């Protein structure tokens, strides 16, 4: 039975349980008491919950483990003897076998996959039925248990509400689990990396060329300093040189000068810049901006200029960041009390003098926090640099030359066909950990600055 039909079946059982319980509760012998503690519908919810939740929880777990079980059964079957030892090839054949199992007339399939298909089909069917049967059984068991509990004096509402409260608590704990999950997975894989490559070599080495790794001394070609520099150069220097003036001036113009109509139209327009997917920026950077920058470099007298310059990626990234800076600056300027502005204007200051000498200095902490957040955003940005920046790790101050970033290297390292435990793959996690820690620090500092600043005006 497919998962949807099964879910509906269980929900249907739950509904039946709900109706039964409510009907029974309506007829309860009240024994002199004027009112029940719980409404009939709440008894219904109690039974419905017991009918639905256990099988659904079981199904979630089961759908997690059953593909593994099917796979194990197939691999142990005699027909799997001819499978390749290479994980990649084996997975590909298994995937094709699954395809054939679904559609026997699939035209393009490996002969071995055709052989395996019946085994796959049989195994999946068996585990699917086991799961279905167990789920339905659980539903009935839950319903029976719950129906046996309800009585006139049963406090169904408290039980239902306590379960709901548990649900709320679990939902909010997921944020912590995710944070822990990120930290553990990055930290664990990085630990394995640092067992093979000394951490100092990784953090302070200036040579990065993961294509050729000496098995005896993998750290020699895994020094990440060029990546850190490239990330800083593109994300925190070039992009910010675009984003800060444009973002700040846009916010100033829209809050202090523009008419209400202009503001109503231009603000969402600028915010659209933040809504454009990064892959679109990346494509635009690679296709339009990078060749233009290269032409400029040639004009400036560098005939061998890279078409994957740091400038192209940084420029486009800067444009992408404009709305972040602008909206943070907007908020900070709005938080400056109007009495400041009035005080300055009443002394005969022009609007621009008021902005540059009173409003911006007063809003500075908020603006600085916004810039920190923007930097954290820029150095974590991936697609623009993957598509427009170079893979060559060089340390350069020339924006017309190529530079690479941490995020680009993570993608490059993990999308090749390397096996899971090589230093090359694990290096991606070490880079990820570095990126995570740096962005986390930037955010903490920025949020703290913003909080202090808000308090100052409240």
């Amino acid at each position, binding site marked *: 039975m497919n998962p949807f039909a099964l879910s509906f079946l269980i929900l249907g059982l739950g509904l039946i349980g709900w109706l039964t319980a409510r009907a029974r509760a309506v007829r309860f012998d009240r024994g002199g008491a004027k009112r029940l503690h719980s409404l009939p519908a709440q008894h219904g919810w109690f039974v419905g919950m017991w009918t639905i939740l256990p099988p659904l929880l079981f199904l979630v777990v089961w759908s997690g483990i059953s593909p593994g079980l099917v796979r194990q059964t197939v691999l142990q079957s005699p027909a799997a003897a001819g499978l390749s030892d290479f994980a990649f090839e084996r997975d590909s054949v298994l995937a094709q076998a699954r395809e054939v199992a679904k559609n026997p007339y699939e035209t393009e399939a490996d002969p071995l996959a055709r052989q395996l298909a019946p085994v796959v089909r049989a195994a999946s069917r068996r585990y699917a039925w086991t799961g279905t049967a167990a789920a339905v059984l659980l539903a009935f068991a839950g319903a029976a248990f719950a129906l046996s509990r309800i009585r006139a004096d049963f406090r169904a509402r408290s039980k239902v509400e306590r379960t709901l409260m548990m649900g709320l608590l679990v939902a909010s704990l997921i944020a912590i689990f*995710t944070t822990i999950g990120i930290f553990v997975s990055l930290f664990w894989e990085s630990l394995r990396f640092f067992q093979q490559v000394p951490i100092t070599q990784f953090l302070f080495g200036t040579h990065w060329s993961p294509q050729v790794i000496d098995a005896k001394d993998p750290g020699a070609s895994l020094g990440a300093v060029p990546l850190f520099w490239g990330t800083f150069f593109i994300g925190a220097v070039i992009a910010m040189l675009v984003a800060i003036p444009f973002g700040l001036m846009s916010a100033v113009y829209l809050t202090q000068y523009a008419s209400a109509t202009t503001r109503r139209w231009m603000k969402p327009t600028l915010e659209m810049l933040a809504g454009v997917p990064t892959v679109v920026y990346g494509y635009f950077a690679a296709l339009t901006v990078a060749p233009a920058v290269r032409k400029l470099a040639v004009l400036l007298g560098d005939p061998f200029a890279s078409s994957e310059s740091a400038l192209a990626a940084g420029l486009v990234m800067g444009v992408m960041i404009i709305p972040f800076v602008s909206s943070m600056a907007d908020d900070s300027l709005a938080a400056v009390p109007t009495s400041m502005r009035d005080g300055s204007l009443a002394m005969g200051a022009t609007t621009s003098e008021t902005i540059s000498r009173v409003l911006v200095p007063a809003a500075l902490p908020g603006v600085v926090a916004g810039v920190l957040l923007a930097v954290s955003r820029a150095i974590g940005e991936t697609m623009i640099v993957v598509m427009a920046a170079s893979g060559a790790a060089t340390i350069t101050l020339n924006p017309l030359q190529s530079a690479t970033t941490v995020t680009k290297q993570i993608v490059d390292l993990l999308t090749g066909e390397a096996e899971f435990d090589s230093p090359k793959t694990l290096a991606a996690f070490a880079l990820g950990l570095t990126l995570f820690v740096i962005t986390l620090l930037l*955010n903490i500092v920025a949020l703290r600055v913003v909080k202090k600043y808000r308090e100052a005006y409240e």
Partner: protein
Amino acid sequence: MSKPAAQAERRPTDWNSPAMQKRIRRRYAAERRFRVLGAGAVILSAAFLGFLLLTMVAQGWRGFTVTELALPIDLKADGLKIERSQLATPAADLALASAGLEDVVDNAATRAFGADGATYLAPSAWLAVRGAVKRDPSLLERRTTVYVPAATGFDRALAGDGDPAMEAGVARLTRQGAIHRGFNWTFLSESDSTDPVAVGVWGALKGSLLTMAITFLIAFPVGVLSAIYLEEYAPKNRWTDLIEVSINNLAAVPSIIFGLLGLAMFLGTWQIGGHSFGPMLPRSAPLVGGVTLALMIMPVIVIASRNAIKGVPPSIRDAALGIGASPIQVVFHHVLPLAMPGILTGTIIGMARALGETAPLLLIGMRAFIVTAPGGFTDPSTVLPVQIFLWSDEVSRGFVEKTSAAILVLLAVLLAMNGLAIYLRNKFETRW
């Protein structure tokens, strides 16, 4: 004007002195410059957006069109040996392929368009014939004309960007009147291919939809429930603080980190007590992509929902509590319905962000070459942004317009989502 005493201290400012007038003029000039700079920043930013969109439209519109050639063909005379009854079985595709339909089509092209004729046809041209035959089996017995897609090179030549041989072919076929340009339905109904003429976005779009469904099913309930907990019930203690800090930081973690999380958590194998477990979820599938993106946008939904819940005035809670509603009833009967528009707006914005996301999905393998649309949540699949990325890497010139066209499709979907969010916000916006 002033008393002598004041004059002794300091002469009153003579605002009409030439020096002062000059200074005033200079200050006004600075004021104008500043204002122009501000307007310039806004206009340039908007112009960049306009330029980007225009570039995409200019390059992408051609991706929605297809060049078709009217191919006269007589399947029986060209020696296609197949029984009409075979076409009704599910094995029809296999049967037509093994009967040599592809060669028959090539021969027909050579006869109709000259010696180079077969090269004018897209590699997928015979599939168009196959489809026509399956729709109307009587074509097996009679002479007919089928519109088949032209080769990429032919299409380029038609756009004035091809090699001389092809351009000669274009000229000849134009004279024959065999060229037909129309809307490329294939682009909306098919999936990836190695041939730019035959590609479509449907496979990637469906992958995106399946992924988004998983993302929504996880992120929406979890996000809303945890917002309710934090805003309405959470005691003020260290644990609650920890949850808040986690959410605020998760909202700012780079998306690629979530890709690493998905890769290590859901696709990695775990050694526990000598047994190896995992991978928990199938690689390259909407399921793992959806779960990863759900974790990524959940903080966005939590933050938006909390703001919406905060916006419901306390008087409403007091009123409900006052008539004896339980705290759970207060929230689910009164607060939540009132906060729903704000929650939905935040959710749509989060979903739009997930829909445009590429980097984490690259890491968890959703970059498969998918020629048929995924059938379910566990099939290998790709998503629209990743498809765009994959096509942008292709060398063939024909992919440029397809990439831009796919971008237009993605932007259209995103625009629709954001439009919906703005509509919801305006329609249900309540002033308390």
